[in-house]
């Protein structure tokens, strides 16, 4: 068994209004100096040893992320 993390982020050229809204709220809360926020998704998968890296890439590319608008990374934690 292993824990795998898939992070999915909007591509740099894709407008991220949610991240902008978070960034806009920070000064109102008294936190200054944060110049940009991008918001994405974080998945944690428990996988058994039969799941290889190619399969994980297919899961990320074909389902967890939409490559039209998002970038993804896969990391094995253990």
């Amino acid at each position: 068994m292993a824990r795998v993390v898939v992070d999915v982020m909007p591509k740099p050229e894709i407008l991220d209004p949610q991240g902008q809204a978070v960034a806009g709220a920070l000064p109102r809360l008294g936190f200054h100096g944060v110049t940009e926020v991008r918001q994405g998704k974080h998945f944690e998968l428990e996988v058994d040893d039969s799941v290889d890296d190619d399969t994980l890439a297919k899961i990320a590319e074909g389902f967890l992320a939409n490559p039209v608008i998002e970038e993804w990374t896969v990391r094995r934690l253990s």
Partner: protein
Amino acid sequence: MKIGVLTFPGTLDDVDAARAARYVDVEAVPLWHADEDLRGVDAVIVPGGFSYGDYLRCGAIARFAPVMTSVVEAAGKGMPVLGICNGFQILCEAGLLPGALVRNKKLHFVCRDQWLRVENATTAWTTRYEVGAEILVPLKSGEGGYVADQSTLDELAGEGRVVFRYAGSNPNGSRDDIAGICSANGRVVGLMPHPEHAIDALTGPSDDGLGMFYSVVDALVSA
């Protein structure tokens, strides 16, 4: 003549889509997400709503439903397919249409009657309109911003595959004011606004949407 109307868990507008089909004297055939059988329909409407609760991404889970395998296969053989709102998102996720729909630029869910300009009157769903005509139909979506990379946008514009643009102010940040697009052969159309809600002045802002359903009848009759 039969038009199939898909229902996923969380679909909302299948009833109105079926009603629109009946308004143009076509039998509306309910198609269930878990069933691969298209039941002999001549065209398919993928209606709006929140399939699978919009979990993961709008349309991302619906595209893997068994019925969508059959819809993609039928579209490949030229069957007219119309995706409305969540249906448009599903067709993009399924790869039948390019690009994607993202959160509205100002984050607010937009619910209003929206003027659209007809840009292409040759698709299977728009021959009853004239290019440049403006129609009034409801728009109700939180993730209606159309995005695609620049080369795709150039291709859509160059090939006349932008079917509708928002007239007046852009309600959601869609690139190039795009409200709806079509496949290269003009048989598959997707749009965010809701023509099926604008088929009778009694229940909608106009009957401007009815033309889409008459258009597909014409396309099927002449086929």
